[in-house]
């Protein structure tokens, strides 16, 4: 039963990264691909009706994690205290920037919020990647199940690591590039004309930056966290996740070249989904490995709530998840199609 909830939490988190990922990505490229106010309004209009719903996936995933694995929630949130608080402030600034930009028709006002939106999106992508890097690398969990990480120490992913070391930074940069591509493909899907062409160019260029990064994280992750290899040896079928990811990655370039916008975006979704599932699969049954004494790792069994809660939770979670999916499908269909770039005169 805890394993089932591990999968559900992983699905919720992956859903969050894929959905909010594209609006964060749209924010990262916002200043570079959209050259005038009309184009910037088009970028914002492409995410306007959905970004808020996308962020709900974070809250819902957090809530699910909270009740299924309270020990993990307590340990990791307090351990990454400072980093999480900065994430909160970035989320606040970014949300405000998206919602309040359109309230005044002043150029200064627009530029101000555009920069906040882009900057917060960029930093969030790096922070999320760094967080994932920390989870894969492991943290110095103490005997009572808690830890507190300094922001950085000697920049080595060894037993004295801080939140920032060369490995977590590598993952952070990878996340930034991955979400840049993801967001560019979304904007390309939702717009046309110059804006679309520029977005596609960004996606293509960053694909070639991504290629060495993908190879680098594939090698270094197994080095930094030996558990990954052991897990894939125990469950050889788990290799489908890296394969899925690789096929998505190749698909991005192929479909970009053939100008199949939706297929390219979906390939990017597959790529990200495959990466996250590979990480989850590789860590299982650990939720948060210890980088010291392996017995202190927080595992699916050690931090899950009692079995009644997990069982009864399924009764409401399944219909609620179906409802949430139905709403999401409905909204995306309702707001389907291109958002036009209004001519500057209007």
């Amino acid at each position, binding site marked *: 039963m805890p394993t089932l909830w591990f999968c559900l939490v992983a699905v919720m988190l992956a859903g969050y990264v894929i959905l909010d990922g594209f609006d964060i990505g749209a924010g990262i490229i916002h200043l570079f691909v959209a050259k005038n106010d009309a184009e910037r309004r088009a970028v914002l209009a492409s995410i306007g009706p959905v970004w808020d719903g996308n962020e709900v996936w974070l809250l819902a995933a957090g809530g699910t994690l909270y009740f299924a694995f309270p020990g993990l929630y307590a340990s990791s949130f307090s351990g990454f*205290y400072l980093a999480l608080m900065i994430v909160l402030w970035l989320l606040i600034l970014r949300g405000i920037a998206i919602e309040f930009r359109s309230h005044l028709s002043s150029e200064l006002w627009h530029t101000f919020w555009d920069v906040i939106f882009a900057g917060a999106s960029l930093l969030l992508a790096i922070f999320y990647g760094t967080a994932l890097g920390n989870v894969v690398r492991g943290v110095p969990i103490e005997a009572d199940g808690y830890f507190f990480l300094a922001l950085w120490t000697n920049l080595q992913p060894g037993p004295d690591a801080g939140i920032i070391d060369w490995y977590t930074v590598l993952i952070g940069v990878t996340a930034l590039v991955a979400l840049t591509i993801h967001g560019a493909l979304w904007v390309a899907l939702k717009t046309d004309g110059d804006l679309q062409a520029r977005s596609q160019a960004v996606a293509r260029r960053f694909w070639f930056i991504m290629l060495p990064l993908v190879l680098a994280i594939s090698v270094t992750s197994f080095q930094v966290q030996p558990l990954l290899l052991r897990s894939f040896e125990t469950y050889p079928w788990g290799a489908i996740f890296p394969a899925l990811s690789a096929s998505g990655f190749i698909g991005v370039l192929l479909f970009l070249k053939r100008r199949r916008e939706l297929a390219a975006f979906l390939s990017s979704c597959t790529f990200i989904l495959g990466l996250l599932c590979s990480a989850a699969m590789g860590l299982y049954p650990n939720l948060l490995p210890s980088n010291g004494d392996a017995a202190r790792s927080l595992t699916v069994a050690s931090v899950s709530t009692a079995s009644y809660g997990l069982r009864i939770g399924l009764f409401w979670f399944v219909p*609620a998840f179906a409802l949430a999916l139905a709403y999401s499908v409905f909204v995306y269909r309702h707001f389907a199609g291109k958002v036009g770039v209004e001519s500057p005169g209007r």
Partner: protein
Amino acid sequence: MDSALAIHRLQFAFTVTFHYIFPQLTMGLALLLVVLKTMAVRTGNEHYNQAARFWAKIFAINFAMGVVTGIPMEFQFGTNWARFSKAAGGVIGQTLAMEGMFSFFLESTFLGLFVYGEERLGPRLHWFTSVCVFLGSWLSGYFIIATDAWMQHPVGYATGPDGAIALSSLTGLLTNPWILWQYTHNMLAAVVTASFVMSAVGAFYILARRNVAFGQTFVRVGVISGAIATILLLFPTGDQQGKMIALNQPVTLAAMEGLFSAENGAPLALIGQPDTERGRLDNVIAIPKMLSFLTYRRWEAEIKGLNDFPRDQWPDNIPLLYFSYHIMVGLGTLLIAVTALSAILLKLGRLYASRAMLWILMLAFPFPYIATTAGWMTAELGRQPWLIYGLMRTSEGTSARVSAGSGIFTLLGFLGLYALLGVLFLFLIWREVEHGPEPAKTA
């Protein structure tokens, strides 16, 4: 009190108080929007649709503020209250996850449709989206109250050998007897806030001689809903909540009322200052025997005083609790008087011409916010020294590894950021009010 504990408490208190400025308006306004949309569908009068569109803009700004200030609340359970979360997450995580899954998705989906989709949807479906926004936001309130109710009055749980608290009955958690009156009391308070804000904007328009037709609609809807809700706030919901506290948290009741020694026929203090050193209430103006009557409907009933309980069970800030409670009750009484008087003038057809009453309505809107905040302070200070009543003390719930210094840093960060947000919020709301509802479209 050790300083890390004080800072964790302050940070949560500040962030949740600031956050709740926004949902209390959106939850109340969601109901009033349904009222306006229903009037539009019923009468076929475009005037009510224009009114609804104006309030939808105010709603959207408040909603955005509520969302961005709400995310830190869920995070802080883990970041600042790790030991509490580890012990109780299996229980309250259920209601918090349900809030996300059932209400946030519903709310965010239909708010998008409500704000952006009026033309595409047509009047009936647009009315339906307003009902869904209302349901989503009131459902959200229900799950949060269920969470707080469990901390006030834990039910449906079993304690394991390692101190972990495990859920043993989900229906028990969702039908906690504490929920009924706390939920209705709280939601009515939200309606009161929205009613006062709506009538304040309406009164402003009438007094300023702009958008007068809209001003009259806003005042009428605000005064009628406000009059109904303020009375229900006092009776039965407030009254019943007092009884629940008397029954389940008698030491809290004694502290709220500033009653130190037990009395048969206890007086109701209207004014006074609790002196916890000497164990007495200074400068009292009281109604004899009233507290006994209100609590038990018997003039001579015994009410227990603080001295009947060991000191380590006393709420840890009795003066603040006492003042919060008295401010809530005092302002509640004032709000009843204002809405009752306005409703009578409305009935007589003299409200729109009574400039004095309109001035009062225009300036009264901060008071429901203050009363609601004071009410929540009463509930949460009254729960002290417990985090989960009778089960876990507040001092046992903090994150052991997060130092006071880290806490001060982030508390200051929130103070600064929220100060900016507050200014921005007021500026944008003022602009919308200044701009006013869109005039009728020419066909």
